[in-house]
C-alpha cells in the first residue's frame, strides 16, 4: 500500500563510482528521524553523466551535482530538514559561471524534450510498482482490450516512427511484414547490443527504464502474433542485464508476462540471451546468429528476417528505444508523435555527447534540432574557449559535419545528404586542436578491428584505407592517395553486404569533402594544422612567455629541455619524442606547436 512521503531524493549517474553514497544518505535520513517522510531512490541515468553523482530533490526540484558521502550530513540538515539550498553543490553554468539551483532552469535540461528518456532519473528502475504508478502497462492494457493488431500497425505507421537502431526503417511497416509473415511460430527480438564506442543510450535506458522496453515488446508480440521473445544484451553490460532480468521477473509476478496476460487470452513470455559484445553484433542477422549460439556474422538479406530469421522462423527485431516509444504513441496518439520532428523524421532523437563539449552525457531533442542548438545550447559549447571545428555524428562510421553547416537541421535525410548519418545519435565534437585525418584514422582502426571479415571489400578496403591514412599522418602521403581513398571508399560502400561496410568510409569521405585543405596540408606542406600528427609537428618554447620556472625541464621524460633558472628554456628537437607533457604542464602557455 502506498505511503505518503513529503520529499523524494532521486540519486542518478552513480555509475558505481561512489558506492558509499546511497548507504550514507539512507543512514543520515534514518539518524535524523526522517524515515517515512523522505524517500531515497536510486533512479538511473539522468544523462548528466559528467556531473555525477547527481541528486534531484522533489517536489522542490533542487538539483545537486558531484555529491560525495561527506556532503550528506550538511545536505540533509540544510535542505531536507530546513528547506535551504546548499549553494556549493548546485550546478555552475560553464559560460556565465552562474549558480543554477533548480533542475528545470538548467539549459542542458530546459532545451531537451524527453520522450525516450521520459522516466530516466524519475522512477526507480527496480520497482515495477513505480512504473505502474506513472502509468506503465496502461498502453498494453489498452491494446489488449480494445485494439486489433491491424489497428496498432495503422497507429504506429501514422505516427511515422522509424527504428531507432540506426537504419531508420519504418516500424509500422516492419510490424506489418511481421504480422503477414506465415508461420506457426514467430519471434520478437530486442536488440540491446549497442556497438558504437561512444554511445551508451541503449545501455542507460535498459538500466533506467527496463519496463518501458518490455511493455513495447509485449505490444509488438501481440501485433505480429508471437508468443516467445528474446532480449539480447551484451554480457559486459552487467547493470543492464541485472535491471532487465529483474523487470522480466517482476512482470511475470504481476501476470504481465506469461499466460492470459491481463485476462486477454494472449500468451507471451521472454528470455534473456547474453553474448559477447561486438560492433557488428548489433546487425540484425548477426544478432540472430548469436542467439542461435553461432558466430555473430551477418548474412545477405534478400530474404528478410521478418520472413526467415531466428531458426529460420519469422522474427521481428527492434531496438530498445523503438520499443520504449511505442507505449507512449499508444497512450498519447499517433498525431501527437507525428507533430514532433521534421517532415520525414518524427519524434525525438537521443544524442550521446562526447569529445570537446562541456556537458558530456545523454540528451534528447526533437528531430530537426540544428547542430548549433545541440552543441551550444544543450551541450554548453566547447570547453576552454576553443574554436568549434565539426561534429562527427552517427557512431564510428558517421561523417563530419563542419562549422559551416552549424545551422543545418539534423534528421535522417539531411545528415545522409551531408555525407554522414543519424545512426544511433552518437556525437563527437572536435575543436581546432583535433586533426581530421588523425580522427578518421582512429575510427578506421576501430572499424578494421570490428569488421567480421566476410566481405572482401570491407575487410581489405578498410585496411588499405587505414594504411593510406596512416601514411598521410606520418608525412609520407602523396596527392594521388586522395583519389585512391575516394575510389576505395566508394567501392567499400557499394559492395559490402551489411551496414558496417556500407558506412565505414564515411569518416574519410566526409573529411575529404569538408576538410580537403587539411589533407593537402599534411601531404604537400608536411604540416598538421591542428598540431596533432607527431611526425609533422615540432614543440618549441615561446621565448617571450617562458618565465624559466623549470617545470617542463623537470617533467620532460627525455631530458630534452634545458635552460637556466629565470631564463627562457629551449627544446632539443633531436631528443624530443613529442609526448606533449611540456605543453600540458606549462602554466604560462609558453610551449607552442608548429
Amino acid at each position: 500500500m502506498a505511503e505518503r512521503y513529503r520529499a523524494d531524493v532521486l540519486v542518478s549517474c552513480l555509475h558505481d563510482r561512489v558506492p558509499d553514497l546511497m548507504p550514507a544518505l539512507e543512514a543520515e535520513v534514518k539518524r535524523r528521524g526522517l524515515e517515512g517522510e523522505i524517500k531515497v531512490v536510486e533512479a538511473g541515468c539522468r544523462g548528466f553523466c559528467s556531473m555525477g553523482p547527481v541528486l534531484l530533490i522533489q517536489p522542490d526540484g533542487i538539483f545537486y551535482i558531484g555529491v560525495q558521502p561527506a556532503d550528506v550530513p550538511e545536505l540533509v540538515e540544510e535542505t531536507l530538514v530546513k528547506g535551504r539550498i546548499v549553494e556549493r553543490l548546485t550546478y555552475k553554468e560553464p559560460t556565465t559561471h552562474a549558480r543554477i539551483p533548480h533542475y528545470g532552469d538548467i539549459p542542458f535540461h530546459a532545451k531537451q524534450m524527453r520522450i525516450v528518456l521520459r522516466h530516466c532519473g524519475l522512477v526507480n528502475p527496480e520497482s515495477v510498482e513505480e512504473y505502474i504508478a506513472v502509468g506503465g502497462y496502461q498502453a498494453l492494457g489498452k491494446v489488449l482490450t480494445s485494439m486489433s493488431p491491424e489497428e496498432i500497425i495503422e497507429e504506429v505507421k501514422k505516427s511515422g516512427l522509424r527504428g531507432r537502431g540506426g537504419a531508420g526503417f519504418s516500424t509500422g511497416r516492419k510490424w506489418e511484414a511481421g504480422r503477414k509473415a506465415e508461420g506457426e511460430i514467430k519471434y520478437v527480438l530486442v536488440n540491446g547490443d549497442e556497438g558504437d564506442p561512444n554511445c551508451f543510450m541503449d545501455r542507460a535506458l535498459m538500466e533506467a527504464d527496463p519496463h518501458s522496453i518490455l511493455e513495447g515488446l509485449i505490444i509488438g508480440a501481440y501485433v505480429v502474433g508471437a508468443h516467445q521473445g528474446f532480449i539480447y544484451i551484451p554480457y559486459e553490460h552487467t547493470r543492464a542485464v541485472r535491471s532487465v532480468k529483474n523487470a522480466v521477473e517482476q512482470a511475470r509476478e504481476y501476470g504481465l508476462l506469461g499466460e492470459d496476460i491481463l485476462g486477454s487470452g494472449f500468451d507471451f513470455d521472454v528470455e534473456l540471451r547474453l553474448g559477447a559484445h561486438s560492433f557488428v553484433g548489433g546487425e540484425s542477422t548477426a544478432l540472430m546468429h548469436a542467439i542461435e549460439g553461432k558466430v555473430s556474422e551477418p548474412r545477405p538479406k534478400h530474404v528478410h528476417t521478418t520472413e526467415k530469421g531466428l531458426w529460420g522462423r519469422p522474427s521481428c527485431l527492434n531496438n530498445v528505444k523503438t520499443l520504449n516509444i511505442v507505449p507512449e504513441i499508444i497512450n498519447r496518439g499517433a498525431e501527437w508523435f507525428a507533430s514532433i520532428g521534421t517532415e520525414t523524421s518524427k519524434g525525438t532523437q537521443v544524442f550521446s555527447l562526447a569529445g570537446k563539449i562541456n556537458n558530456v552525457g545523454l540528451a534528447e531533442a526533437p528531430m530537426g534540432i540544428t547542430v548549433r542548438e545541440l552543441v551550444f545550447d544543450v551541450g554548453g559549447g566547447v570547453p576552454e574557449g576553443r574554436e568549434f571545428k565539426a561534429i562527427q555524428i552517427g557512431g564510428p562510421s558517421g561523417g563530419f559535419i563542419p562549422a559551416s553547416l552549424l545551422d543545418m537541421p539534423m534528421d535522417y535525410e539531411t545528415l545522409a545528404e551531408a555525407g554522414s548519418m543519424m545512426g544511433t545519435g552518437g556525437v563527437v565534437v572536435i575543436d581546432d586542436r583535433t586533426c581530421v585525418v588523425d580522427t578518421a584514422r582512429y575510427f578506421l582502426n576501430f572499424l578494421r578491428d570490428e569488421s567480421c571479415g566476410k566481405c572482401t571489400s570491407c575487410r581489405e578496403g578498410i585496411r588499405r584505407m587505414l594504411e593510406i591514412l596512416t601514411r598521410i599522418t606520418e608525412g609520407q602521403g602523396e596527392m594521388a592517395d586522395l583519389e585512391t581513398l575516394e575510389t576505395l571508399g566508394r567501392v567499400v560502400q557499394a559492395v559490402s553486404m551489411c551496414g558496417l561496410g556500407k558506412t565505414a568510409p564515411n569518416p574519410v569521405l566526409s573529411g575529404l569533402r569538408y576538410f580537403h585543405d587539411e589533407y593537402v596540408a599534411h601531404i604537400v606542406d608536411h604540416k598538421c594544422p591542428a598540431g596533432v600528427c607527431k611526425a609533422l609537428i615540432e614543440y618549441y618554447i615561446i621565448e617571450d612567455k617562458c618565465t624559466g620556472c623549470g617545470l617542463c625541464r623537470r617533467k620532460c621524460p627525455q631530458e630534452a629541455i634545458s635552460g637556466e633558472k629565470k631564463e627562457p628554456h629551449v627544446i632539443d628537437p633531436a631528443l624530443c619524442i613529442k609526448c606533449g607533457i611540456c605543453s600540458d604542464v606549462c602554466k604560462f602557455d609558453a610551449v607552442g606547436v608548429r
Partner: protein
Amino acid sequence: MPKLKSLEELQKLRQQLQGDIKARTETSTTITVGMGTCGIAAGARETMHAILAELEARNIDAHVTTVGCIGMCSREPLVDIQQGDEPRVTYGNITPAIVPRLIEEHLIQGNVVDEWVVGRVAGGG
C-alpha cells in the same frame, strides 16, 4: 503477489500506487512548513507529521515542503498554503492538534480560517 487479471485491476493498482510517487508528480497545492531553528523549537516537525498524516488519511493531492525562517519567529509553527493561482495564505501557531481543522476548512471546504491567518501574498507568489 496476485496476478493482474484485467485492465481494471491494473488501473486500480495504479491508483493505489500513485501515492508512492506523489512528491514527483504535478499538483496545484503546496503546503509549506517553516523549518528554521525557531520553527523546529516550536514544534514544526510534529506539525508537519500531522499534516502528512492528515493528507494521507483524506487522500488529498498536495506537496509538503519546508523552508527556513521567514522572520516571524514568535508565531511559529508557520504553515503556508498555496492553491493554484490563489493568494498564498500564511497561518501562525499551527499545532498538531489544530491541523485536521485547518486541512478540513482550507483544502476541503475552501474557506480561509481567518482567525489563524498572519498574512497573505497575492498571485501565485
